[in-house]
């Protein structure tokens, strides 16, 4: 049994890759899967903060690649879910710290340890780190904002996924590509100020696996180091839960695409 490798990527920075990686990994663990989530952003470690384990990082991804620590030593066990582990990025400034062989060795090690899923949190850009994060993937979640530069960059990434990855080079079945639209604001879409789900799907020629509404809860969740999927009252959290279910093959309708109508009390008292 080999682990399914999911890369969370985007090209453009700041669109919600790490937020998404943390929530998808946590969601898969909630479903009973054994999951490792790896931060590929060498030099700019951040996933540990979003997962809330920043003070427990002893060894990192590069230490394992260089044989300075074992995989078991470097994997940080989540405090909330027994089957969820984090592998932090190194803070070295050496960009060549990761190699293709090294990454392959770590992914193989995780398969041997019985992991069901490995979520690879890609750095922004299309440089080496992003290339390594996507190279071995079976699934790709392309995070996109309804905004021109993000949409254009995701098209570029979709092109790279279908040409510069192991599956493409070996002529195997293509990586399964999933589009995740984040920071969606139905009110702005309604007045024509923001690209709609359909607009983005039309331009990129691929349908979305989920739509995460813009939400104050995302910042609150990152402030406290709790993946937003665990905030069950928030629409963003619920939308991530739906996305995880869809990734696992379940069919669920998209939610939170309509403008929320304010209730009587909200209209009277504001809010």
């Amino acid at each position, binding site marked *: 049994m080999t682990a399914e490798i999911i890369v969370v990527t985007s090209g453009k920075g700041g669109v919600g890759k790490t937020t998404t990686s943390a929530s998808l990994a946590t969601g898969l663990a909630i479903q009973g899967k054994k999951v490792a989530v790896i931060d590929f952003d060498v030099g700019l470690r951040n996933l540990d903060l979003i997962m809330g384990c920043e003070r427990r990082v002893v060894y990192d991804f590069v230490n394992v690649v260089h044989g300075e620590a074992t995989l078991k030593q470097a994997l940080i066990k989540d405090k909330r879910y027994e089957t969820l582990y984090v592998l932090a990025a190194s803070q070295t400034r050496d960009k060549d710290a990761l190699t293709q062989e090294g990454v392959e060795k770590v992914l193989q090690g995780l398969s041997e340890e019985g992991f069901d899923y490995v979520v690879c949190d890609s750095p922004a850009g299309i440089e080496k780190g992003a290339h390594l994060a996507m190279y071995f993937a079976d699934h790709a979640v392309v995070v996109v904002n309804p*905004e*021109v530069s993000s*949409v*254009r960059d995701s*098209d*570029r990434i979709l*092109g790279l996924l279908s*040409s510069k990855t192991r599956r493409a080079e070996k002529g195997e079945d293509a990586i399964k590509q999933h589009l995740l639209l984040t920071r969606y604001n139905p009110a702005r*879409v309604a*007045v*024509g*100020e*923001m*690209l*709609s789900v359909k*607009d983005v799907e*039309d*331009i*990129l020629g691929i349908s979305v696996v989920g739509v995460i509404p813009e939400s104050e809860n995302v910042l609150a969740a990152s402030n406290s180091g709790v993946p937003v999927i665990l905030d069950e009252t928030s629409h963003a959290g619920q939308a991530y839960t739906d996305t995880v279910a869809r990734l696992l093959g379940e069919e669920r309708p998209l939610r939170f695409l309509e403008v929320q109508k304010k209730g009587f009390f909200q209209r009277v008292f504001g809010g």
Partner: protein
Amino acid sequence: MGILDFLKRRPEPSAVVAKERLRIIVAQERSTRGAPDYLPLLRNELLEVIKKYVHVDIEAININVERDSGHEILELSVALPENSKPGSTAPVAG
């Protein structure tokens, strides 16, 4: 569409503009994707060879890769300067 809509013609919503711009640029970038990495280099080397015989500018060389039902066609066109004569070696051209 309301009856009075034509009375208050508003500018196009910015999302419509965004979609149209993206549609065009994405199509353009997809058409040059695939085998573009060596094209700039090929263009430069071709220029060196052509320059031995005719004085042309790099802009005069156009290279395109077209895909058509499984076939790939490398299309190359060189616009020769007006006063170049076939067979003449390296004329001083404008």
